[in-house]
Every structure is written in structure tokens, then in C-alpha cells.
């Protein structure tokens, strides 16, 4: 078989394969649900109800989408420049750690300043975490996929050490858990009484900002050029190495913000289970969004809905909630194939 580029894809060509990818994902999930003894329609119904069935459920979905928007943006930015950042998990925890370091009483500042400081510091340390692998890539040609993956393990062990040592909450009854943030370091709720914090708004702002950077600025142009064809970019005089490093800083910074938002907006303290893999799920989010920053918001909501919905479905229907993870992984694989099929025709020959 042979792949033949399509000169001008029709609307159907561009819409049908992604739609089929989503469809195929649900077929896979339905089959697995049946194997586990569930009625697929009931299972999907319960997922939908769990995600959007009540005001509480909707807010829960929005809260769950928040870190995914940040990590999804982090990955979308990096992947667009062909910087394969699989280390958003470590960058997220780095942002969380610095928020706890600054926000548990070491500093005493008014709330707006405190939050700005914590947020900026989270971006900075997240960026620094990715800078190492980016430098190894640009200087020595070390594949960043493996280094960022390995750094996830290293950094999680480091967090574990911090939570049992320097950052351990003296009042924590021996649990590996940090002290609680002081009120000035907490992101307030958007509407009093509703469990939705300003981190969600911040995530939306970040998505718009990345979109503007991509389409309107020279940096966005450079990042896209380097990602599409680094050789041509270098020939034209675009400083490829510097662009990759800038991309790494932006990407790591966005993932760092996820950690800040989770600790400051939702949890109030740091534990080892702060992220159930938001860094990895961000890859799925970014790919489902076709790496488009505004698409990331939609994809993050979709993914969060499946997670939140699957949790409550699992309790009601007895089908393991890992069904959600399977759906996302298959959606990722089907979607990359679908994107290919929007641009290429498969020919026998």
C-alpha cells in the first residue's frame, strides 16, 4: 500500500476520519464494557450522567479539566515544535512544590502578590525542569522522550523525599503530606459557594494566550517553522536551538502552572497523589485537539468528562473505571491515524 497526499482535501475528507476515530473509540469501549458484564448503553449513559448530570458533576468536570488544559497546552506547544515533552508530570510537580515552599508561611504577602509570585515561580521551575532535557537534545542529540520520561520517575522520588523530610507537615500525623497553604496563597473560588476555582479561568486565559502567540507573534511563527522543517528554518536564519529552548521554557512553564493551580486552587496542600497522570493525559488532550490551543480546552473538557463520568459509572455499574483510560488511549491512536487520513489517500500498489 502507498500513501498519496491529497492536494485539496474536501470538507468530508477533513471531518469524516476524526468522527470515525471517536466512533471507533466508543465501539472499543462498548465491547470492553460488555466483557465486564455491563450494558454499553447504560455504561455510556452513566458516564454522561456522572459528568454532566448535576450542578455538582459539571463543576467537578470543569475542575478536573483545569490541570488537563494546562498540561495539554504544554504538550501542544512542545509537540508543534517537535519537542517531545513527555515530562509534564515532573514539571507539574515542580510547580506544586514551589507553590508549597512559598505559600505555607515562609513569606507573608497580600493575596494578589502572593498568588502572582507563586504562579510565576511555578512557571519558572516547570520551565527549568524541561530546560535540562532540551539542552541535552540540542547540545548532544539525546532523545528527549526518554530523558523526560526518566525525569518523571526521578522527580516523583524527590517529591516523596521532600514530603517525608523538609516539607513534611508536622501536624500531618506521619502522613507524607505538606503543610496547608496560608489563605493568601489560595486561589479563590470564581463564585462564592460553588466549587470552581480561578485556576479554571487562568487555564482559559492561558489557552487564548498560547493561541495568540502561535498565530500572531514571531515566536509562534518560529516554533511552527522549526517543528515543520528544522533544516529549512535553520537555512533561512531562524535560530533553531534558541527557538527549541524557548519552546521548552514555555511548555515547561505551562505544565508548572498546572501544579500551582491544583495545589493553590483545589487541594491546598501537596501529596504524592496530587496528579493521577495529568502529564501523560495531557498528551492525549493535545493530540485530540490536533495541537490547537483552543481545541485543547474542548479536548480537556471531553477527557475530564470521561474520567469524572467513569468514576461514578464504575460505582454504579461495576465496570472498572480504567475503562476511561482505555478510551483515551484508543482515542489517541485512532485520532493520529484519522489525522493522517485527512491528508493522505491510501492506495493499493
Amino acid at each position: 500500500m502507498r500513501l498519496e497526499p491529497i492536494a485539496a482535501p474536501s470538507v468530508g475528507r477533513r471531518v469524516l476520519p476524526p468522527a470515525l476515530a471517536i466512533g471507533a473509540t466508543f465501539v472499543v469501549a462498548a465491547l470492553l464494557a460488555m466483557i465486564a458484564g455491563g450494558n454499553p448503553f447504560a455504561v455510556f449513559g452513566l458516564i454522561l450522567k456522572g459528568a454532566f448530570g448535576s450542578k455538582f458533576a459539571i463543576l467537578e468536570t470543569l475542575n478536573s479539566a483545569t490541570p488537563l488544559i494546562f498540561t495539554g497546552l504544554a504538550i501542544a506547544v512542545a509537540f508543534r515544535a517537535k519537542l517531545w515533552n513527555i515530562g509534564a508530570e515532573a514539571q507539574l510537580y515542580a510547580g506544586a512544590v514551589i507553590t508549597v515552599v512559598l505559600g505555607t508561611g515562609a513569606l507573608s504577602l497580600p493575596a494578589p502578590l502572593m498568588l502572582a509570585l507563586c504562579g510565576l515561580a511555578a512557571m519558572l521551575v516547570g520551565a527549568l525542569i524541561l530546560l535540562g532535557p532540551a539542552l541535552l537534545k540540542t547540545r548532544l542529540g539525546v532523545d528527549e522522550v526518554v530523558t523526560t520520561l526518566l525525569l518523571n520517575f526521578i522527580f516523583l522520588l524527590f517529591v516523596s523525599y521532600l514530603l517525608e523530610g523538609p516539607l513534611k507537615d508536622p501536624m500531618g500525623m506521619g502522613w507524607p503530606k505538606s503543610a496547608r497553604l496560608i489563605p493568601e496563597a489560595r486561589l479563590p473560588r470564581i463564585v462564592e459557594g460553588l466549587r470552581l476555582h480561578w485556576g479554571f479561568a487562568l487555564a482559559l486565559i492561558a489557552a487564548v494566550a498560547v493561541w495568540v502567540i502561535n498565530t500572531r507573534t514571531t515566536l509562534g511563527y518560529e516554533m511552527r517553522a522549526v517543528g515543520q522543517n528544522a533544516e529549512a528554518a535553520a537555512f533561512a536564519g531562524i535560530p533553531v536551538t534558541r527557538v527549541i529552548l524557548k519552546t521548552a521554557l514555555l511548555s515547561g512553564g505551562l505544565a508548572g502552572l498546572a501544579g500551582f493551580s491544583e495545589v493553590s486552587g483545589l487541594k491546598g496542600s501537596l501529596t504524592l497523589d496530587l496528579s493521577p497522570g495529568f502529564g501523560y493525559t495531557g498528551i492525549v488532550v493535545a493530540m485530540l485537539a490536533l495541537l490547537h490551543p483552543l481545541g485543547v480546552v474542548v479536548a480537556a473538557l471531553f477527557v475530564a468528562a470521561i474520567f469524572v463520568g467513569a468514576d461514578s459509572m464504575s460505582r454504579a455499574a461495576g465496570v472498572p473505571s480504567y475503562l476511561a483510560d482505555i478510551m483515551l488511549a484508543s482515542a489517541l491512536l485512532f485520532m493520529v491515524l484519522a489525522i493522517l487520513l485527512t491528508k493522505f489517500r491510501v492506495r493499493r500498489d
Partner: protein
Amino acid sequence: MTDTEKAQVVLRLDGITKRFGPVTANEDVSFALNRGEVIALLGENGAGKTTLMNILFGQYTADEGSVELFSQPLPAGNPRAALDAGVGMVHQHFTLAGNLTVWENIVLGVDALSAASLRPANAKARIRQLSERFHLKVDPDAKVGRLTVGERQRVEILKALYRNAKILILDEPTAVLTPQEADALFATLREAIASGLSVIFISHKLHEVMAISDRVLVLRHGRLVAERATQDTNGEELAALMVGAEVSAPSIAPASPGAPLLSMRDVTTPGAGSAPGLARVSLDLRAGQITGLAGVSGNGQAALSDLISGLISPSSGTLELHGASPQGWSPRSAIANGVARIPEDRHKTGTIADFDLTENAILETYATRFSKRGWLDWVGARAFAQKLIEGYDIRCPGPDIRIRLLSGGNMQKLILGRVLEGAPDIILANQPVRGLDIGAVNYVHEQLAKARDRGAAVLLISEDLDEIMRLSDVIHVISEGRLSPEFARGTMRPEDLGRWMAGEGFEKGMTDAA
């Protein structure tokens, strides 16, 4: 050999037609190849030569028509069938694995994949025997990556002979050889032909076609437009048949050279991979003059081009532009110093395939002309792209078209427009017409001549000696990173340049210059 044996048909193509969507690559092509015969397949790029060979090799299936090998029908779409029947092909881009040895490359695919052992001793002995008989000297244990281009071609031919090929297809085999190496290749071929081999020789170099073939078939736009016995035709007729009209190349008036705008003194650069760097090269590019650089590919052209493009810096020696050494040599400072760069590979280095025309048009100038404090001026950029489309006759639906969808000629016009728009006074043109149709070739050559006439210094790098001799006011030859003295237009015959290309006059030339 008796006449009946000689007339024995070994390969017959009958009514081959192949379409790719709306494009017809081959239309009703029929011919027969006799035993011990050399057929030249002549045609421009895109005339359908490669498609035809790919059909023979089962890479494509013909829509209509059939192929017969040694009086047996050839099953369509099976790459093994032609090989097993005794057809060997030397591709234009060698199909060798650099990290493997010569013998490993040669035996690849000979034994069934289920066979238990490669039997290296047998294989090497046989290779030595063949290389002796056909004067194809090469060490079976050498890594292919370390061989010269000429040696790699020998490996490719050995590969075919090792398989007892009875028909050998050579696709543009001399593109990478010096005239002298090409002569050696022809000698080898004649020996092989004498022992019964039949050859299809694909080329667009007329003098070679005249020298080696018995019969010439001319392909144009996928159709077989003419067949001539070589002895009954001549170069002029073949050229006319190939392009379908009398060739009207732009006439180049004599130049009035001025001061050197770019000067190198004793410049040495590191090599890249198997290609050499520059070795103590001194070169002046003068205003109002086209300097041609002749040479076999892979002899330091890439290093010279990278140097002038700003991608690399001299490791020793000096580079001066407009009489001053540039600070911090890079692509950006090259552009800032008025160097226009037309890269060798317009797909890989010249353009970004999935960017639209506007985005490609501003690739070199986005930061200086279309940016305000980090914000891009898309309105200005689009207007600039529109200007290039009109000024350089780029045929396209508009500035939003993805560059991938343009033809090679239009892509090259965009690059020309992009680099010539600021009226640069130094122009590097590295293989500027490779793979273009004759109309686009003439357009590019006219633009280069025009730039020269307004006082620009032009460096034309090409592997096509005809192009170099036609356009250049002065010629240098490059071989293994060394540069020959400057030869004025009309003072050298192709054979003379060929000897320099083979590295011959250099020691003498060096002492003469000293």
C-alpha cells in the same frame, strides 16, 4: 555471435499506460530490447522514464499493457519477478546501506530470508572474481559509507552482476562521475555487453547517449515520440525531439566585471560525513560576473555553499564581503550582508512544505521586515507574497496556498523572488535548475543573467557541465575540496575541465599559482 542470436528479443514492453489520478505518466509505450543491445532512453525530467522502470520492477502496476521478459509474461506488481528473471537496476540514488559492508550490501536479498546462513566466504570470493573480470575494483569488507561515489556505483553494478543479471538498467549513471570515470564505466559496460548483457541506459546527456547506445528512444510527456538508430541521428536532432521544439536558451552577453564583492583567502572548512570540506580555497566573486563552479557532486560543493550561506564558518583562512570580514557569520548575517542564497534542495532546505506561500515568502525577512516588537505583520506579509506572485510569475491560486501543492518550477520562482527582491549583490545559486522543465530552466537562467547585468556577483554551482559552460563568465573546478585556477569563458573544452574534475591538474596548478 550470429545474426539470429543478436536479434533475440529479451525484453518487450507492449502498450504500457500508467495514470496517477488526472496525470498520465506513461501512455501506450511499446518497445523491445535485443540481446547484447544498448538502448538509450532519453527524456527530460518528468518525461516518464522513472515511472516506466518502476513498472518493469513491479513497484507500480501498469493500468494497461504488458511486459514480456525472455518471452515469458512478467507478472505485474511483483518486485521480485523482474529481479529473478535477470534484470538488474542501478538507481540514480544508490540503494546502499552505508553502515553495512560491501559484501553485505551485495548479498542482501539474494538468498531466501529463510536460509540458514549468509556464507560470507563464498560471497566474498565470488565478488572478488566478478570485480576482477569487469574491472570493478572494490574491497568486499569495506563499509559502504566510507567509499567514494564512484566506488559505490561499482558496488551497485556488482550487485546486479552477482545476481547474473542479463539485462542492466542504468538510471543517469554518469551524474555522479567525472568524464574520465564515465569512460571507465563505459568500458566496463562494453565488456559486459560483449558477454551477452543487454542494457537500458537512461540519460538526458546527449553526448553519452551518442557514445554508448545502439538505439535511442525519446520519451516526452510520457509518450514514446521517436526512435532512432544512433548512427542515423545527431545531438541536435535528439535535443529537439526531447523538448518538442527548437531549444531557445537565453543568449548571454559578455560581462563587464567589477570589484570583488566576496573574497576568500586560504579558507579551510571541516568536512561533513563522507563529503570533504574546503582545503585552502581562495575565490573572488566579482560584481557583474557569473562564476561557475564545476565538479562531480560530493567534492566540497556543499561545504562552499554552506559557507557562503552562513551555515558554517571557516576553520582557517579569511572570508570578506565588500572588503570587510563579517562579524558572527550566520545565515542572518549572510542575508544582512546582501547574500541571496538559492539552496540545492528546494523541498528540504528552501521551503517548508506545509507552510503557505505567504509564510514561505517571509522566511528570511520575517524578523527584519514584518515584525514589530515580536508581533508579526501579516497584512504586510501577504502584500509582499502577492507582489512576488506577480513579479516572478508564480502560477498559483493565491498567497494562502500550501507550498507543497506548487510545481517545482513555481517553488523555485518563489525562492528566487524571496532572495532577489531586496536586490542583493551576491547571489549563490546551488543547482538552481535541477529537476525543472525547460521553460522554468530558461526563466531561472534569465533571472541570474539579469542580476549579473545589474552588477551582482553570481556563483553558479552545478554538476551539469553544459549549464556551467553556457552561463559562466569564468569557471572554477572543485575536486576533493580544492579549487582550480580561474578559467575564462571559452578557454577550456569539456575534456579539459573533466581532467580537473578528476583531480588531475591540481598539484601542477597549485605550483603554477604559487
